[in-house]
């Protein structure tokens, strides 16, 4: 008989689980440098380093590559092109169109053309520069406007309709129209794209990668290799940031590394240097959106006609779902009684734009927020009053343009009222107005904007998750699930959930690397759903194990099930208290299975894409932010003075982690709308391809006065411990910064005049907006609508 351990796993202190601000599970390893990322793993013997040759020019046909010098370069062991792909060449995640290496045609500047494996990283990179490529340049489509002219799309347009917007618009007392260009955003995960492929016996391939979607990497690697999925195992312990940029677009590098590894029978690591990473991967989608609103004297919207134009880049990737989500958020928190929302998916000859925190939602939401501001400026009212006038409510209506009832209407109204008071909005509005009357050069702006974000994948089948839990005979617990850790604290939260379910301390639960051989067929860690889905699946697995232990104990100790309690690492069985580990050992000796899987699927979803009606979301996560800025009218530079945030996370699983998501999302969204400017040349080459010329927020951009509170109320829906998803929604709180900048600019306008401000509002764009107001004549079309 195997001897059981006498060293029972018994953590010292009693720590609370769910609802406690426990540190990130890797926090200590982060600060000591012990946390390993793919490039930090001990290198396998004979490791080769791969590099990718990218198209240096814009799109073209008749691509001919002379790679003889690349092959002959020092250290080079192998070079592959599309001809060398043993299996499928298309790695499109949903729809076809993403080819793993160029096939006779350059689709966009920065496209991977070939891959090199060499004995060291520097040799591989140097060799790629020796390629001689020729092609016949074609004239690139780089703008939405050009794509419209040429009729280039990656998918069919979609329309949502509620009532008859067209008729209602013509009857409305006031009508305005407007448009907004919204540029994209580089993810700038600090850890760039990387994969390590290790060939195994039996034709297997083990991939260590930095991906939000290990199951898709497994599928695509298997397909390019032409092997069954069970030959490929993908392991993701953690990512150094993902933000959506590693949802679909981490797979290509794994596929290339795997092909080189298979050909050479050696492990291959492929890590993109930063400028290549920025040049060859997709961004947040640029959009150009238009609106036409009809409203009454009070500013109440009567009808809305909103047209969303997404710039998708060269392939579908996830663009259809992204433009859908922009449409789903074009109402944001506002009831649009008669509405038409149309979403177009334009194809352009650039990198394929992809998932990025918010997934189209931000671009939809900022559109209606800009339009609401226009109503306020047109009527000469405080924008907050117009916002409150139009919120979903019993009086205004709770039906969205896609015919879903917004259950959170009451919460939204209360949340905004609460923030209005706690941020002292009205008093500060008066102070801002006084300041602007007195100051010749500086202008202040203030804005309070809401967020209502739909939670669930709009592709229904993705709303499922699995988990695997083992209890070992010392009472320690191994936890695995399909979600990936990219910094958001998923592993910590799920460990808290499992610990709570088993009545043990969180230290007893060991989260482990996400692996396709432990939990199969997983969804990407995306759509803010990581905890909702995997937390529930893990809870279910834990519950199964607990139930087995209860059944066993009932029988073994001759007690009723209700006499058994799991808490603080102890199991109360009738009158006796046994440690969890003792009970586990006894169960093992009596042949009880101590391993279980868990599974969850989100209930209540019913989206009918053919009618554009139904319930695409399980629930909404809400929030609001109030931002105050000071603008220098000489240079367009500005400062974010103060931010107040109230955000709805349901019953928080971990307030510290949730606050981190809120603050981090806010600053990331602020970067999108302020300093982060993507610049492309006339061939579609990214000029802003380095952190030297693409500026994400730095530490001084964090507002000196930053007040964040949780609207800590249990979710009405049955989510895990009644919590709410928190990954994406806070990003859109930053729309308040953009609106505040526009508010400061508007203070220089004539009554009724609406400033035009691009996104991102770089200092240059702010100065442009200020100059435009100076130069616009009174006979301007916008003001004539008023007359």
């Amino acid at each position, binding site marked *: 008989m195997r001897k059981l351990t006498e060293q029972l796993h018994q953590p010292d202190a009693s720590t609370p689980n769910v609802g406690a601000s426990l540190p990130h599970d890797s926090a*200590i390893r982060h600060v000591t*440098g012990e946390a390993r990322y793919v490039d930090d793993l001990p290198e396998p013997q004979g490791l080769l380093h791969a590099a990718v040759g990218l198209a240096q020019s814009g799109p073209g046909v008749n691509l001919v590559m002379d790679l003889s010098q690349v092959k002959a370069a020092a250290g080079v062991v192998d070079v592959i092109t599309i001809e060398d792909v043993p299996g499928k060449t298309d790695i499109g995640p949903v729809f076809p169109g993403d080819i793993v290496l160029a096939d006779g045609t350059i689709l966009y500047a920065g496209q991977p053309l070939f891959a090199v494996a060499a004995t060291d990283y520097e040799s591989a990179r140097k060799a790629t520069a020796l390629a001689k490529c020729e092609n016949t340049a074609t004239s690139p489509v780089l703008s939405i406007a050009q794509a419209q002219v040429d009729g280039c799309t990656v998918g069919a347009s979609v329309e949502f309709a509620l009532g008859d917007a067209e008729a209602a618009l013509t009857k409305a007392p006031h009508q305005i129209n407007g448009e907004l260009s919204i540029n994209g955003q580089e993810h700038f995960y*600090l850890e760039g794209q990387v994969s390590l492929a290790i060939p195994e016996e039996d034709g297997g391939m083990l991939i260590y990668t930095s991906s939000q979607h290990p199951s898709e990497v497994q599928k695509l690697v298997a397909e390019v290799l032409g092997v069954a999925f069970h030959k490929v195992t993908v392991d993701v312990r953690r990512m150094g940031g993902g933000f959506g940029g590693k949802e679909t677009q981490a797979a290509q590098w794994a596929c290339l590394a795997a092909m080189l590894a298979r050909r050479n029978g050696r492990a291959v690591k492929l890590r993109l240097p930063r400028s290549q990473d920025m040049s060859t991967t997709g961004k947040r989608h640029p959009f150009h959106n238009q609106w036409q609103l009809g409203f009454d004297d009070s500013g109440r919207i009567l009808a809305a006609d909103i047209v969303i134009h997404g710039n998708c880049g060269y392939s579908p990737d996830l663009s259809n779902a992204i433009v859908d989500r922009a449409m789903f958020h074009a109402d944001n928190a506002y009831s649009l009684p008669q509405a038409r929302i149309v979403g177009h998916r334009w194809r352009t000859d650039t990198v394929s734009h992809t998932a990025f925190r918010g997934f189209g939602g931000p671009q939809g939401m900022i559109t209606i927020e800009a339009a609401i501001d226009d109503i306020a400026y047109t009527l000469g009212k405080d924008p907050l009053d117009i916002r409150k006038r139009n919120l979903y409510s019993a009086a205004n209506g709770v039906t969205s343009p896609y015919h879903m009832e917004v259950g959170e209407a009451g919460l939204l109204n209360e949340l905004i009222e609460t923030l209005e008071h706690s941020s002292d909005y009205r008093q500060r509005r008066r102070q801002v107005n006084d300041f602007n009357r007195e100051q010749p050069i500086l202008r202040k702006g203030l804005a309070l904007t809401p967020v209502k974000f739909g939670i669930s994948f709009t592709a229904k089948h993705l709303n499922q998750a699995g988990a695997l839990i083992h209890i070992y005979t010392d009472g320690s617990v191994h936890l695995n699930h399909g979600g990936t850790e990219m910094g*958001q604290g998923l592993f910590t939260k799920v460990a808290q959930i499992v610990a709570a379910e088993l009545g043990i301390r969180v230290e007893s639960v060991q989260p482990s690397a996400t692996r396709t051989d432990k939990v199969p067929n997983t969804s990407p860690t995306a759509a803010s759903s990581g905890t909702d889905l995997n937390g529930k699946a893990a809870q279910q697995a834990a519950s199964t194990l607990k139930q087995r232990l209860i059944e066993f104990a009932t029988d073994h100790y001759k007690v009723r099930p209700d006499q058994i309690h799991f808490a603080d690492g102890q199991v109360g069985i009738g009158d006796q208290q046994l440690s969890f580990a003792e009970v586990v050992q006894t169960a093992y000796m009596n042949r009880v299975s101590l391993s279980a899987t868990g599974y969850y699927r989100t209930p209540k979803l019913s989206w009918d894409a053919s009618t554009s009606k139904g319930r695409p979301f399980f629930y909404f996560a809400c929030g609001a932010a109030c931002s105050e800025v000071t603008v220098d009218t000489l240079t367009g530079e500005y400062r974010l003075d103060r931010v107040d945030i109230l955000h709805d996370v349901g019953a928080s699983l971990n307030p510290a982690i949730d606050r981190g998501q809120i603050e981090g999302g806010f600053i990331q969204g602020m970067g999108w709308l302020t300093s982060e400017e993507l610049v492309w040349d006339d061939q579609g080459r990214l000029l802003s391809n380095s952190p030297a*010329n693409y500026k994400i927020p730095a530490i001084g*951009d964090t507002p000196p006065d930053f007040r964040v509170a949780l609207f800590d109320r249990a979710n009405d829906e049955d989510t895990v411990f009644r919590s709410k998803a928190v990954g994406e929604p806070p990003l859109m709180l930053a729309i308040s910064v953009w609106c505040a900048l526009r508010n400061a600019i508007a203070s220089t306008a004539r009554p009724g005049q609406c400033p035009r401000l691009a996104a991102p509002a770089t200092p240059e764009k702010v100065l442009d907006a200020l100059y435009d107001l100076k130069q616009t004549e009174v006979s301007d079309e916008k003001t004539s609508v008023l007359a």
Partner: protein
Amino acid sequence: MTTFLLNEQKVTLHDSSADQTLLDFLRQDAHLTGTKEGCASGDCGACTVVIAEPDQGRLRYRAINSCITLVHSLNAKQILTVEHLAQGNQLHPVQKAMVEHHASQCGFCTPGFVMSLFALYHSGAAPERSSVIKALSGNLCRCTGYRPIIDAGIEALEHAQPDTFDARAEKTVKALSEIETEVLPKDPLPDHSVQFWQPENRLELEQAIARCPEARFSAGSTDLALEKTQQLKQLSPLIDLNRVAELNRLDVDEAVLNLGAAVTYSDLAETLLADYPEATEWLERLGSTPIRNRGTLGGNLGTASPIGDGPPLLLALNAEVTLGSVRGLRRLPLHQFFTGYRQTVRAADEWIDCIHLPRRQPGSLFRVYKISKRVEDDISTVCAAFYLELEQGKVRVFRAGFGGLAATPLMLSDWQNSLLQTDWENIDIAPFAESLEAELHPLDDVRASARYRQRVTGNLLRRFHLETTGTAPTRAIPVELDHA
């Protein structure tokens, strides 16, 4: 032969290439993978390590970007990496504060932040938000939004006490001085395997140039190293100017501030700001703390970039520059130095020796403005410096230097002369701003349009006029002008 302390261990490099970066050495050769590569261009700070060196018997700790620091330039210094801070399970106070404040999410940038905070911890800085922001200006985090990191930094400073590094300091200083005296060869010429010269004085520098005329000069390598990490060029052979005594002079006489060309921005700050406190914001916006800990004014002139931040200030202040070579030293006004796009009068075998600034004239008015998309660690869209002396209210001297507006750092003699003898307090500045804008022919580029550059430059003249004649605040970006 290069010898240094890697954490506590003495390391001698025998055969690594002259242009190997410290980051590559740490990750590939020393297998210390706690230090990360985020960009390999000195912009993100994930690779931050701390360099300790003796300074008047004590140790001075400075954060640097290991990705653009050449490992051979660290002779006789101590390199401290993130793996070394904790003692067993006992976290260093800055690490502890980061954990307690939930200041890491994905964790990839965290080692860099920890090291910058460690240098700050040893700097004696006040436990204030501004100290933390300044110290972490070169560290990017994409996850947290920085608030918890700022809080962690303030708390660590509030409770700063001598740590194990202080306890070992004497031993470390001794070990480093032993390397200086016992290990380093007196001959500045390297063995053949490593093409890296590190002269100690002008004479040795001349010898090195004579022996290896094709060698390039390197100081902080904050710009030079990018040719290797971004363009994959070979940099060696190299002559490192960091240890040349004469190039490290920092002295002030009655008329002139002499700033040695190899003095880092961090080291020249006190001297420069004593006379020209209005340059405080400019200096804080010039690169980041780790860049300023390595970058030099000589390097900034040597690269002759039209968007360098040094030249506009130096031109407005009427600086002179001394160049050195085997033929001796020559000194010339800085406005004669730049000849074209990244072209100067410096001959291939000449080094930049010293920059000379006139002392502050009583009553003179001076401002230097930098405009960029981001405040911390960004390249200038426009940099403009204005200098003014009045005599009975009339403009007696007016000089302006501009960056980001032409192929070279720019002075507009005719335009600036048009302001002479005007009644500064009462002039209408608008026509001068307009004529300035008309003189400028900048380019559209990734940072801004030509139109913005023109508008902003005219407006900066307006701002200068407002600030030197009026009282209304003109700046959204906060700036400490207490000493002005």
